[in-house]
């Protein structure tokens, strides 16, 4: 969207994409809390639809996506910009519809960048603390993530379990790093 079309407000959109990077995750969490929490004007509608966002799994997901999305877009945008829109135009002139153009022409170009972005995103999501911490409510076994669990254990002076969980997190991070390097090598070809 930001690379293949020229339109008004393009700058605003690109700036918005980078917003989560600049805002502290805790603030992001608070914003979500205000938007979907009890004080929010949206709350009655959400309740009516039986949607629990705050202090529930959707909230955790939402916060994670918000914080990590820029990692994907940041990876893809330069690739798409470098490529320009020539191939897409050629495909459109030959009569291809939007979906075909994306799937057959654009996607092969961004495949590796996308994968790379997803890995970075996953790595960030695993460790995400601030926004999730505010939004999830630390419900053990329900809305707890690994970093949150470490904090809880740490606050309970359960150092050994805290470090054990930490090492799981480190281990996962190392695996992701290995996958990332592999993707980099593959995609560089």
């Amino acid at each position, binding site marked *: 969207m930001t690379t293949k079309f020229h339109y008004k407000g393009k700058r605003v959109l690109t700036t918005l994409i980078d917003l989560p990077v600049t805002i502290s995750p805790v603030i992001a969490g608070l914003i979500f809390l205000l938007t979907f929490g009890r004080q929010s004007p949206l709350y009655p509608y959400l309740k009516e639809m039986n949607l629990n966002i705050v202090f529930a799994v959707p909230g955790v997901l939402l916060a994670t996506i918000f914080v990590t999305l820029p990692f994907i877009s940041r990876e893809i945008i330069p690739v798409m910009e470098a490529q320009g829109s*020539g*191939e897409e*135009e*050629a*495909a*459109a*002139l*030959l*009569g*291809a*519809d939007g979906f*075909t153009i994306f799937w*057959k*022409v654009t996607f*092969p*170009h961004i495949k590796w960048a996308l994968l790379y972005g997803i890995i970075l995103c996953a790595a960030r999501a695993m460790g995400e603390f601030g926004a999730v911490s505010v939004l999830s409510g630390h419900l053990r076994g329900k809305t707890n993530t690994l970093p949150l669990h470490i904090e809880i254990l740490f606050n309970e002076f359960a150092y050994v379990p805290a470090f054990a969980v930490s090492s799981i997190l480190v281990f996962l991070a190392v695996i992701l790093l290995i996958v990332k390097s592999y993707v980099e090598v593959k995609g560089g070809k």
Partner: protein
Amino acid sequence: MYVELIDINKSFGTEKVSDHVSFGIEKGKLVGLLGPSGGGKTTILRMIAGLEDPDSGEIRVDGKVVNQTPAGERGIGFVFQNYALFRYMTVYENIAFGLRVQKENKRKIDERVKYLIRLIGLDGLEDRYPAALSGGQRQRVAFARALAPGPQLLLLDEPFAAIDAKVRKELRSWLKEMIRTLGITSIFVTHDQDEAIEVADEIIIINQGRIEQKGTPVEIYKKPATDFAATFFGDGVWVRDYSELRSFPWVQGLTGALIRPEYVRISKKSEDIKYQSSASEGVVEDVSFRGNSFEIRVRVGDLLLRAGRGPDEAPLDIKETVDVFIYRILAIKGREVFLLENEVMKDDSLII
């Protein structure tokens, strides 16, 4: 007229890229849009293709207004400047793409693609990716891809710009012949006048979003309609004041004059020439070999002129004093152009 543009205007921001552009192109013609870079040629091509919308005006193809028709439904083939081949598809898949999205049956696609690959002379390379092709081969693939769905109109944006000089010449004649054989109406954009002269049946000169002149290469060369057409098309030396040259009528309010090398005849003092009396004296300043002729720079009074000389003629030395006879000049007054013949030639009784 097969393709018609009627009073097209287009601006990008405050910059006017098409200024009341109107022209028509006959079916089967190969037309070149010629002009300096940034003059609005490509935009015109993109508007015909539907990649860009005009701010006002009408575009007609085969009698139908196509302004509202999406690019993919106009049935126009387009060859991009950098070819824009699908990098992640083989030569075969590139050419087949247009037919596949039209949901042609497999056997028909295969037949058509194989025919086109043979036509462009790339047999055996159908499984290559564009990255493994040379510039010339890529251009041929782009050409075949544009032709695959059987368009009635082919548009080419600077088709030879990305190819090195030697292959370019070869490809020009190849493309010209190919388009002739297929009989498809074609419009191509170029900033290279040699290319336009060699390839096009008709040339449209475009500058700053305006059409300066439309005509065959010979017409434009012989009778340039505007000062821009005169200076851009063909070679020449620009002089402010030609009063030093003998026997040309003076035009009131002149901006200057253009003297093409072909209009200038240089002869050695020892050579006998017609119109000797009205030749001016000049001094050779520079002689350079141009492959099939010599280019001579000669000073006549304050004017530094250029002229050609055949390789078989007696060689000229630098600083040699020679006779310079000028057949005709293009006098330019504002946007108007006058072709002035040397008056001696009109009146043969003057010959001594």
